[in-house]
């Protein structure tokens, strides 16, 4: 099949950027959006033109490297799937498709479809870790964690860090990402010992770098790891608890 691809080109962060249109032939419905870009790029390079810069890596939905906006929708037309799993199946032969970078002020464009998501790492650096040195951990069997508790923690830990939540949010908020990390670590025995400190600093960082939450719920619709909106409640829960505990 053949598609008309309108793709965002932007040389660097200071460039204003524009759309460029290309025809890509020889596609098949079960190819992913990224494979369509592969095809476009090979076509461009063969003709001596610079390829469209975009990020991707594992192509099986777990690394979180990929992420483009397809016809205005983060990652692509289907909910809860990363770009590498978004197939061309819903597009007709000859149709147009518009590919943009993930959009959010917290994710400045680096080049073409690549954005700078290092703000998410800043959040992790603000406290999304466990302060235990190699070799000093106690026997994991001596710290019982209920089966349900472990599963719940894993639901939140499933985040792949793609940034779709931020890009889908009309407020540019990273509450889902931050809340998921706070919730995940609050549910594990060793990790929860520094829970208050973590909530304080991660929430502060999230507010400095990203927007507030107005409960649009778009983040959870876009999230490829299907993180529940409960993560947002966890964000507030952890922060309030930390505030209360400090006062008491």
């Amino acid at each position, binding site marked *: 099949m053949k598609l008309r691809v309108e793709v965002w080109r932007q040389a660097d962060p200071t460039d204003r950027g524009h759309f460029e249109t290309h025809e890509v032939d020889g596609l098949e419905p079960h190819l992913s959006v990224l494979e369509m870009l592969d095809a476009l*790029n090979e076509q461009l390079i063969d003709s001596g033109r610079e390829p469209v810069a975009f990020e991707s890596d*594992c192509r099986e939905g777990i690394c979180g490297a990929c992420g483009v906006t397809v016809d205005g929708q983060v990652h692509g037309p289907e909910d809860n799937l990363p770009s590498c799993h978004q197939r061309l199946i819903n597009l007709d032969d000859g149709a147009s498709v518009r590919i943009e970078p993930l959009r959010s002020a917290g994710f400045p464009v680096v080049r073409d479809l690549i954005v700078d998501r*290092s703000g998410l*790492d800043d959040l992790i650096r603000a406290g999304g870790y466990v302060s*235990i040195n190699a070799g000093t951990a106690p026997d994991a069997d001596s710290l019982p964690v209920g*089966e349900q508790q472990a599963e719940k923690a894993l639901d939140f830990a499933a985040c*792949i860090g793609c940034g779709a939540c931020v890009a889908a949010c009309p407020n540019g908020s990273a509450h889902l990402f931050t809340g998921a990390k706070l919730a995940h670590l609050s549910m594990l025995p*060793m990790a929860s010992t520094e829970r208050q400190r973590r909530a304080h600093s991660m929430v502060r960082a999230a507010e400095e770098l990203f927007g507030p939450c107005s409960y649009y719920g778009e983040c959870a619709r876009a999230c490829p790891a299907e993180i529940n909106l409960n993560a947002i409640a966890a964000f507030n829960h952890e922060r309030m608890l930390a505030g209360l505990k400090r006062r008491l």
Partner: protein
Amino acid sequence: MRITDKLKDQFGRIGRESAPTQDSHTPKRPTSTVPGVRLGHDLNSKVPEGDPETAWDRRRDEYRLVSPLNTKKMTIVVVGTGLAGAGAAAALGELGYDVHAFTYHDAARRAHSVAAQGGINSARARKVDGDSLHRFVKDTIKGGDFRAREADAFRLGIESVRVIDHMDAIGAPFAREYGGTLATRSFGGVQVSRTYYTRGQTGQQLQVAGAQALQRQVTRGTVKLHTRTEMLDLIVDQGVCRGVVVRDLVSGQVWAQPAHAVILATGGYGSVYFHSTLAVNCNASASWRACRHGAYLANPSFVQFHPTALPISSHWQSKSILMSESLRNDGRIWVPKKTGDTRPAAEIGEAERDYYLERKYPAFGNLAPRDISSRAAKEQIDSGHGVGPLANSVYLDFSDALEAQGRETIAQRYGNLFEMYKRATGEDPYQVPMRIAPGAHFTMGGLWSDFNQMTSLPGLFVGGEVGWGYHGANRLGANSLLSACVDGWFTLPFALPDYLNPLLGQPLPTASDSSVREAVARVEQRTASLLAVGGKQAASKFHRRLGEIMYRGCGVERSRASLLQALAEVRELRAEFWNDLSVPGSGAHLNQALERAGRVADFLELAELMCTDALDREESCGAHFRSEYQDDGEAERNDQRWAFVSAWQVDGPPQGTPGDLVFTRHAEPLDFEAIPLATRSYK
């Protein structure tokens, strides 16, 4: 005293000049039948004398240390932030070293360790199922078809216990029993339950926990993390590795980071096959650059092919997605008996189907080990029984299981996998059988290192899949996450201080040192030569063709003829590459075409070495199956001649200039004391 002299004092003769340990007692290594291959010397594994089981404990006690007050004076470069790299950087950061960590990703967490699904083995042996350290080592060594170092496997087992404790403590939510203790499951190739897991995302959970630990060190200031920065060369001063040269992928700036020691944790090279279960950015450039500086590459032809990968169905498909091996528990693998049968599966009657695994391996049936299943599938496809539009796959049929256990049970077990399959192929596995094919997966081969994880290039260490350790000729499921974790968290932090100890007070090379200037110049020269070709074809085109050559010639099954042909084709393709490559743009900005071209240029050289090694090793072992050396379809090992590791030295002109690569085969003899040599059989 010059640094190299000091090192020579400590280590005896080093690098290329390292003393051949071959004496009158060691048997002569077989001469190579590959034209042009030179024979080198035997390598010293530096495993302490005596019982391999206690070797690691004894070695740890011997290691020299760097005092906590001095660690901050030592600079260490860690390339790669996967399980091994993040672990090593974090652990060394915790000890106070000045660590520089590099990744070409935008974030440390994205390394391809995330994609491992199954789990991580550990010889904790808590259950009463008969597991023990010894059994763990036996399974690992036997699974690797006796082509790994015994003492390494013991170290892996010993350190595996605290790996679980540590990863659990730093945030990996391992699956738990209702009573709250850690849950385990069993995995292919073993009869005990020693695999710890977090659903189907063990790799991701471990990787994210490791990356978080790394970020903690970044906050503490001990680790400087350089994202979107690719290592392109090593600074080598008189045979000693003293830093790296990297390129900032965004600005294009090339810069040097001198160091007292360099750790490569850059993963395997399976993506040389183009279609593999690896990520699209995985590459061999770091290890190949090391190789071109005198680090030997061990057993490069040992590549594991995963039997349950998705087949290639169209030209633009970018990879073969891995489907969990657990599918083989309930799916039955078959092909039509008639060759070239293009009827849909439903029209092929029971009598016309060949359940070849059940027929050939009645004891293990559809659960035969990876290499055997892959080979059997390849055999069926090559003999014209393949199914699918390109006749390149076999059926994995769930209809019997669906009938016997009901759709609900199957959906509960494999629902998400079925969904993923449907999304990728457009076929519904509840209605029609799945199609699977072997896909390049894990590379057991890698940079050769001694027992201290140091390569033959002093100052250069390895961790994880980039190295060659532990897995021999075939890797056991759930051992790869373990080896990366053990190397990163619990081997390198012990081994490195021993090397660093004599270097205390040694200044790092500066911008005025010729070693630094030459390394930077090499990188700039190489970039310039890639940009200068000015041809008409994208690097990805060459990569795809290289993959086809390698699957055909150096794939699941190799023969002398297929390898000779592949060798010729690879050389031809490489010549074409340097004539007709197209790299638009310049080196002064983010240029993915340039990045890709550099990686493919390295693959094109590595592929030649892989074929050479496969051709050179005249036996079958584990994943290396030479059709000439088989006993009725079973790999026929030749311990008399080939019970050693081939460690290849590579010499040749700089890339892009005419001239042939020259390969020299060094050897590390393998002795088995605790686990006596035996023949693998799954019949």
